């Protein structure tokens, strides 16, 4: 009996060792936020990514998905598992910049490719840039910079600006200030994950500002805008698309109508890739995709395009293929700068009533061919 067991075990082990040697398969590890207040960002990024993979119909691409619960330590240990035990070729999925900073530098140093679907902290675009790291979304500052420029041209001169105190929050306010020409009524950092904004709204009321710019992604944005609408303060608000994605404005409701926000993508952008994406996403999931879904979709399509050229085992060839970015992005023109961050148009959208809810409508271009300001600090 024991002999049989041993033989069985031996067979199992042989099978386990043999499995990874089927060299043609590509393993992608996705760590993203699927639970907690920030869950809808990760869920949309995942759904967009998986939609593109399914449409490609390739059965040699395996995607492993894990939930980081928006916790840096969880993300770090999942990344170690993916790199060391699963031997993934490519990693992707992280939404939050504080998690990105905990995970990405060590992953790319170990030779694994990382393609960011969302987080684009300034350090990774500048002094910590790496040849194996690509950002398919944006550098964190971009949408905020564009809004700074837009609000300046709209004639606002005394803005109250607000963001959570974490890498993407400081990037947001720095980005806004880079192109905004007016005065600041106040600059306030809140806690990440904060849900009560009574104190900040009272400060806005007392500040005498002519406009409010805020970056509050996920549940934070819902809480802020609902409380703002109920407070009786009527200073107009602006922000990046992260504060006004389809899920957030759905939860805010009519109070969001008229708010303008900047985005690198809109679901009503007129190009063939986007129309295919939006209609197939709606058909599969029964909701309008957010920008996070578009980023997930683009990331997967970039990977698939590069896989047509080379396998990730051939690192140099695969890297060159990624760099070429030879795919039809749903946001229109798309190319990489020397620091592997996008150069792309940033659009302005306005929230309008639609059916029994509200939705974002494309208004125009805020900044054309925007590139991040950290590219010069990157020695690649």
């Amino acid at each position, binding site marked *: 009996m024991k002999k049989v067991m041993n033989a069985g075990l031996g067979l199992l082990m042989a099978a386990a060792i043999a499995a990874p040697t089927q060299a043609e398969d590509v393993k992608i590890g996705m760590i993203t936020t699927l639970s907690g*207040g920030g*869950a*809808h960002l990760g869920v949309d990024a995942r759904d967009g990514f998986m939609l593109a993979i399914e449409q490609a119909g390739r059965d040699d691409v395996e995607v492993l998905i894990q939930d980081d619960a928006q916790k840096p330590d969880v993300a770090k240990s999942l990344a170690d598992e993916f790199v060391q035990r699963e031997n993934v070729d490519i990693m992707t999925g992280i939404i939050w910049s504080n998690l990105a900073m905990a995970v990405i530098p060590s992953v790319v140093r170990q030779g694994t490719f990382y393609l960011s679907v969302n987080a684009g902290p300034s350090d990774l675009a500048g002094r910590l840039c790496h040849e194996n790291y690509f950002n398919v979304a944006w550098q964190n500052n971009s949408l905020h910079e564009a809004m700074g420029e837009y609000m300046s041209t709209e004639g606002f001169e005394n803005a109250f600006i607000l963001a959570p105190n974490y890498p993407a929050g400081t990037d947001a306010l720095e980005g806004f200030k880079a192109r905004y020409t007016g005065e600041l009524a106040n600059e306030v950092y809140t806690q990440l994950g904060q849900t009560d904004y*009574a*104190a900040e709204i009272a400060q806005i009321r007392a500040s005498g500002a002519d406009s409010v710019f805020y970056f509050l992604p996920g549940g934070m944005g*819902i*809480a802020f805008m609902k409380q703002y609408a109920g407070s009786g303060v009527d200073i107009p608000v602006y922000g990046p698309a992260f504060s006004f994605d389809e899920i957030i404005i759905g939860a805010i409701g009519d109070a969001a109508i008229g708010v303008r926000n900047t985005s690198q993508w809109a679901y009503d952008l007129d190009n063939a890739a986007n129309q295919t994406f939006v209609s197939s996403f709606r058909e599969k999931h029964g909701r309008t995709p957010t920008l996070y879904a578009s980023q997930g979709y683009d990331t997967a399509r970039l990977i698939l395009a590069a896989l047509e050229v080379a396998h990730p085992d051939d690192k140099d060839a695969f890297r060159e293929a990624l760099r070429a970015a030879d795919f039809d992005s749903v946001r229109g023109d798309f190319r990489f700068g020397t620091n592997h961050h996008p150069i792309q148009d940033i659009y302005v959208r306005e929230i309008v009533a639609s059916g029994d809810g509200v939705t974002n409508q494309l208004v125009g271009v805020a900044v054309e061919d925007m590139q991040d300001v950290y590219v010069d600090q990157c020695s690649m």
Partner: protein
Amino acid sequence: MTLSLLFEQLLNGLQLGTMLFLMASGLTLVFGVMGLINLAHGSFYMTGAFVTAWVTGTTGNFWVGLLAGTLAAAAVGALVEFAVIRRLYHRDHLDQVLATFALILIFSEGTRWLYGSSPLWLNVPGSLAGSVTLPFGVEYPLYRLAIIGMGILIAIGLYLLISRTRLGMRIRAGENDREMIGALGVDISTLYTLVFALGAGLAGLAGATIGALQSVQVGMGEPVLILAFVVIVIGGIGSIKGALVGALLVGVVDTLGRVLLPDVFKLFMGASAASGVGAAIASMLIYILMAIILIFKPNGLFAVKH
């Protein structure tokens, strides 16, 4: 910083404090009477909010939703006490922490399974929307004012319940000597279930009222739970009066710290550095407060004598 802004921020602190009191009073009662550390208290907060959002969505009436949410949280509390918590009273605190932490995971996953991971939609009722003008020319949201009023009423109600009623007498007796009250013929297990359901109901009420202001989402209870633990440690574990004072203290210190500290730092550093540093220190402030209080009063402000 004008006087009216300060007054408004004090009200905000008070409002946060009354909410924390609803959470902390249940937590401290359960610890005081049963000697149980209940990490799953935040799950009742979440239950209250979700049921309120759901019932309000179906019936279109916030008040029906609020009642349903509170009762559902109390009922879930009673059920959990009967099914799980009951087996933990004689175990040590580590076992209780482990088991109630497991409950958090079960509740969170269960809620996600039922409602999905997107935040739910719950609005302030029409009759309490908008804001009112208070002395000092402060415009204040009516709903937040109503929360403060409700918190005060519940604090008075709890005080009367505990000092004037037979149930309150048993609760106090249970706090003082658990074995003796059983020996005197009080049905201890019913008392425990009642106290637990009361605490869960208060947490559910807090979750439901706050859910209308913020967003109703999985995991919304845990940040509040941490604050509630700070409150009961400051107030003295097991003391309702301590929970009230601790909650108001934490609410006011947290709110004013967030507003005033960045201004203080602006006196000697650049504006954006000051807001960053100020915000970082403000988020630690209540823990610093807790540490200072514990140095002078190791058992909290109103320590319960055992």
